[in-house]
Structure formats: C-alpha cells, structure tokens
C-alpha cells in the first residue's frame, strides 16, 4: 500500500514537474517562447493528429488551391 502511494505521488509530481520544465524551457529559449506565443495567438493546436481536426490546415488548403488553380 505504501509503495502504491509513493508511486502515485511520484507520478503526480512527474506531471507537475513536466509542466514546470516546459514553462522554464520556454523562458530560457526565445525560439520556443516566440513559437508558443504564435500558437496561442493563432489558436493552433499542435496536438491534432489528422488534417480534418485542424482549421488552419483546412483554410490553408483552400487558399493554396485558389492561388494555384
């Protein structure tokens, strides 16, 4: 029981730690910071796995198609 409890605490600390490390890395890296700012401003979701889930991708395709044809 004690072991399970320790693992759970460790897991939760790991999740919070991962989030904190992302925040700190962003502060240290101007590139990452600029990219995150742009992602937030344009409401981009970098986690989507297929083009139909991304409004930016669907808009981009239409714009390119209009310009090329």
């Amino acid at each position: 029981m004690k072991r399970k409890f320790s693992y759970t605490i460790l897991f939760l600390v790991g999740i919070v730690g991962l989030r904190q490390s992302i925040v700190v890395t962003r502060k240290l890296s101007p590139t990452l910071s600029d990219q995150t700012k742009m992602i937030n401003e344009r409401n981009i979701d970098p986690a989507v796995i297929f083009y139909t889930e991304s409004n930016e991708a669907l808009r981009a395709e239409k714009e390119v198609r209009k310009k090329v044809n």
Partner: protein
Amino acid sequence: MRWTEDKVAILIGVIILLIGSTVYLFLPLLDVYILEALDLVRAASVKLGKWEVNPLEAFEMKWVGLILLIIILGGLLGWGATRLGDSLLDFTKGFIAVFMLAILANLLGSQVDFKSIGFGYALWAIILGIFISNVFGLPDWLKHGLKHELFIKTGLVLLGAEVLFGKILAIGLPGLFVAWVVTPIVLVATFWFGQRILKIRSKSLNITISADMSVCGVSAAIATAAASKATKEELTTAIGLSMIFTSVMMVALPAFIKAVGMPEILGGAWIGGTIDATGAVVAAGAFLGDKALNVAATIKMIQNILIGVIAFAVAVYWTAKVDKKEGEKVSVSEIWTRFPKFILGFVGASILFSILQQMLSPENSEMMIEQGVFSFSKSMRSWLFCLAFVSIGLSTNFKELKSQFSGGKPLILYLCGQLLNLGLTLLMAWLMFYKVFPEITNSI
C-alpha cells in the same frame, strides 16, 4: 450470421457515419432541418476546452455532451461486445472506467503547456493506462471493457471517411511528388533497412515505426499497426517515438530553416513532408510565415490521404507474404479469408465520401461534409482512439514494453528513416518547386 470484430467495427462505423450524414447531409439536401437532432449531434461532438491552471475550465458547457457521448458510444460498443460474446453488464462496467480515464487523458491533453509541445490525448491515455495497470493492477471487472482492437477498428472506419482523394492535387504536381513519391520510397527503404541491416525481429514493429515516421505519425501508426496485426506494445513504441520526435522537430526544424535563410515555400514543403503530425506541421509552418504554413499544411494533408493506400497495401502484403508459411502457396480465397476486413470499411468509407465530395459544389462540400458530417465523425473517432489508447495502456506490461527498446533498434530505425526522409524531401521539394514547376511557386 457469425459476427467478427471486423464486421462489428464496420457496422458501428457505418451507423455513426449515417447519423452524421442524415443530420448534416441527406436531410439538408432535401431541405429538411430537424433542429433538435442537429442540437443533439452537435452536443455529442464534444471536445474538452483548453485550460491553464484550473482543470474545471475544460468542462465548461461540456457536461451534457459527455453524458450523450457515453450513451451513444457505450450503447453502440455495448451492442458490439454482446455480438462478440461478452455480457452487456460486464462490458458496461469496464467501459465506464475506461471512458473516465479517457476523459482524464483528454483533460491532460487540453492543458495549454502540454498542448503547446504537441503532447495530446494519445500520449496521456497510454501513460495513464500503463501507470494504473502496473502500479495498482487490474480488477477482473475492468478487463471486460478493454476492447482496444474494436475501438481502433471502428475509429479507422470513421477515419477512412476523412480520407478524401479529391484533395491530392490541391497544390498541383509538386505536392504530389513531395508527398506521394518520396513518402513510399522512404517507407519501403526504412522497412528494408530495419529488416536487412538492423535485423529487427518483428516485421510489424518495423512497418509501424516506418509508417508513422514517413507518413503522418499517430494516425498512420494506428492504421498500419491494425493492418499488420502489430501488438499493443509495438503500437505504443511507435507512437511514443513519433510524439517525442515530433515535439522536438516542431521547434528545431523551423529554427534551422530560419537560421540558414531557406526560402519560405521550400521550408514549408520540407516541414510538411517530414514532421509527423498535422498539428505540429501547422505550428512549425506558421513560425516561418503564412506562405510556409499554407504549403506545409497542404503537403501534410496530401500525405494524410496516403494512409488509405498504405493501410490497404500493408494489409494485402501481410496477408499474402508475411503471414504465409515457408513454401506454402496461398490461394486468392485464402488471402480473402485472412484479409483484415475492417480495411474494406476504411477504404469503402474513403471512396464513398470522396465521391460525395466531388458530387457536391465546393461550398456545399465544405459546409455539409467537412464542417458537418466530419464534425461529428471526427469527434467520435478521437474518443474511440482515446479509449483504444487507454485500453492499450491498461493491458500493457511495462517490462514487455521495455524489451521493445532492447538494443535501441526502434530508435535507430526511426532516426535513420527520418534522416533519409529529411534529405529526400528537401531534394524533391527543391526540384519540384524551384526547377520543374517554378510557376506554381510564383503563384503561391
């Protein structure tokens, strides 16, 4: 009629597509609008909102949708489970627990900092599942809800509908060359490298990693793993590799392109052809500029369409060659018996919706299919994949997963394949966009 998992998956997929199509496509074409049905379908297409500090923000206005979703998915999958020999009560108990974990995985994937580096629900679902099963163990009642193959196959039938072949010439021939010529070459070369040079024992692990690296990340890994009957540990390995490298490349590749002063369109085409996931491609392309974003997202979209062909080809190759015993002659009827039938649902949905899209005007196609039917089917598909990843995590033994990485071969395979991908894609993009079709580049 003898029900199999593939038949059940196809039927559930068809029912979900029919619900979406009736509300968004067939009735509007007849000028009939049932607002109550539209509201119900919209509410069930639930996606948790973004949150930074307070997780409850993600559930704002989503509670009704989540209840509807569990009723729809629980009902359909519960029916499927009974056809496959499970009791409805046993399945429902396990399914509710798996669904709760899927909500938790979606919640973590909606956190803005995790989202910003591309750590979405897929990764969290697997991590949560592995943690729970390996620390607490699994009670017997929960095991009845772990139907990852049924969830994946049903999700793939829905994904098939989103594979619209009318999109492949969106950017003309240069896009086709970058996405449809380089990608299969990289896929086959990486698979060959894994078999002949690295001597990876499992062919299904090799093809799943090769496909997720060369085609389009998680979605390609799911489709290829299902077509090649890869184990859950193999799929987990491929997805883990893809997500980690995608989050690194999403930052590193545009930074490199900027540093060397590469033209925007060339950079966009390079990003679109090499970064695994669509979301990360859009984020990386946008960092370079609007032209790069448009080219990158369009190339990635054309590459996304390729998974229909790849999944079908892998299923045929596996049935006719890999599953064959040495010296055995496999007849056409034997190939048909062994062939994973859900692939037919996947390909059939793709062909049907590609035809429908061509029949409608561009405005109607966008409104009724892309923003209509797909808004429902892609939400169902995302939840099905999330349920599948939770189930995979819950039934994955950590020691077995660790053994997949022995000798570091999957990592070497991914790295070498990606290096080839980077080189070939850049060469093809430069040739196509700047030497062979410069007029297309100028028009963008």
